[in-house]
């Protein structure tokens, strides 16, 4: 428990948190949206964020850690500013999704989820992203980018801030 770093919601995140609570009949149901909110603010979900949320929503810490480690889109390791999820499922792998993923890894010289040296990009191997007509496709932060090949993918990622 790194006691040095602390985390709490900024003003409008706290407001959205309050609004989330009104949506559900109990507090626990709001855990996933709150974790999304915290991850947007902090980039990833380390222990001190977990203990803050655990205090805020009075949910045992181990339950929150379980949820974070269960889902693919919650990260308990530091990730880059931009998350790039490359689909490697059936329809996309037929059109070279895996070669694009390996190519991107080699090009940016990183591993699964480890950020590039300048902390810009984290590559993640994902299962079907539900955009099979754009095969092979990837998700850059929140939008789909389809009909890729290695060069267009690299070029797209170079433009990212």
């Amino acid at each position, binding site marked *: 428990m790194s006691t040095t770093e602390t985390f709490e919601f900024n003003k409008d995140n706290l407001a959205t948190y309050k609004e989330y609570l009104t*949506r559900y*009949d*109990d507090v*626990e*149901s*709001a*855990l*996933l*949206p709150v*974790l*999304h909110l915290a991850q947007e603010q902090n980039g990833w979900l380390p222990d001190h964020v977990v203990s803050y949320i655990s205090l805020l929503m009075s*949910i045992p810490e181990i*339950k929150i850690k*379980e*949820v974070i480690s*269960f*889902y*693919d*889109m*919650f990260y308990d390791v530091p990730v880059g500013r931009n998350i790039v*999820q490359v689909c*490697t*499922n*059936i*329809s996309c*792998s*037929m059109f070279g999704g895996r070669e694009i993923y390996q190519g991107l890894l080699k090009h940016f010289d990183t591993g699964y989820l480890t950020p590039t040296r300048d902390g810009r990009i984290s590559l993640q191997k*994902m*299962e*079907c*992203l*539900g*955009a*099979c*007509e754009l*095969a092979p496709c990837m*998700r850059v932060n*929140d*939008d789909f980018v389809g009909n890729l090949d290695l060069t267009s993918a690299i070029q797209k990622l170079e433009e990212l801030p």
Partner: protein
Amino acid sequence: MKDTANNKDYALLSYHHIPGVHKIEIFERAGGYETMKECFKKEPEAIKEEVKASGLRGRGGAGFATGVKWGFFTKDRKAIKYLLCNADESEPGTFKDRFLVERNPHILIEGMIISAWALATQKGYIYIRGEFYQQAVILERAIKEAYAKGYLGKNILGSGFDFDLYVHRGAGAYICGEETGMISSLEGKKGQPKLKPPFPAIKGYRGLPTMVNNVESLAAIPWIMKYGAPAYKQWGTEKSPGTKLFSISGDVNKPGVIEVPLSTSLKDIIEIHCGGMRNGNKLKAVIPGGSSAPIFNAADSYLVKMDYEDVAAKGSMLGSGAIIVLDETRNMGDVLKWTLEFYHHESCGQCTPCREGTGWLESVFKRKEKGQAHISDIDLLDKTASSMRGQTICALADAAAMPTQGMIKVFREELEAYVMTPAKVMTKK
């Protein structure tokens, strides 16, 4: 985004050709929310009867008759109940819900309001998968518009009926597409399926009665209520009436989502609706209903009619209607490898047969990479798959086992050849 011109007269995509139909004014000018207003004049029981009469079957994958499912629901209108829309859609090859909701969120909202009125649920959640962020934003905006118009919230249209609808984003887990897995996820826990019985209709979200329906099933309700059940039964067969959204991907010239009546032949779908095979290659195999559906070889693909009965008769299942077309250049071993890698990654790890079984199935292909696989591993795959089926809480183990056994039944020689050749040795620099 492909948009077939002749969709005007079908149920789900009838508004798709109108630009900007995601705005509520344009949707209403095109006739949206009319049926919802009429439905509020009707008795909820009448609506349930109509849906039951229409023979609409669940479009998520199991194909269970929606009307019958509604029948299990408690009749006590005062009890606290929930209506959940399953928009998790992580079945490989499936993107019909995204296509539907992206362009026309209001048809889903209208369908949910009518269903809520029929089932008397006070609260509804659209559980959308975490990766569909833009679609969640579109839905959120559409719901705000509906609230502004008074179609949601307290005392809808002066009928004294309240219904609150919210979007709830998942966070990337295929297992949350399973009914009880989604309920666990909505309860803020790991998306691990719950023991059945008790079924969600009796004891679901927070231990209260919960009705879970797929996006496509709920979106079909407005058309059924508008034109009546007999009109809906004109399409498809007696047992599988109505139209179905098919998401076609793979080696076709125009992959995308089409809406065709059920029991349209697969041949027509590929040749007519999707512009035939890509660069004219010969068809080798088709996965008819998403990755958990056993594969068809070329012969069966040309004979089969896409409805629940005929596909099942040929040994597969219609599932979510995700057609993946494979031409002769494709290698079936790779397809099975990717499928099993998917299930190994997505197994929630609760039940032992599935948690260890999916890992073991995939390990055969990991051994193949190192050239240590042997022809007897095909029997190992078959034996493991058969010992996984029917042993677990949810159907993911079966969804991993059936395609394996299907592939072995149909393409055994190719698999044996595939298993015996190690990965391409990187001799070239």
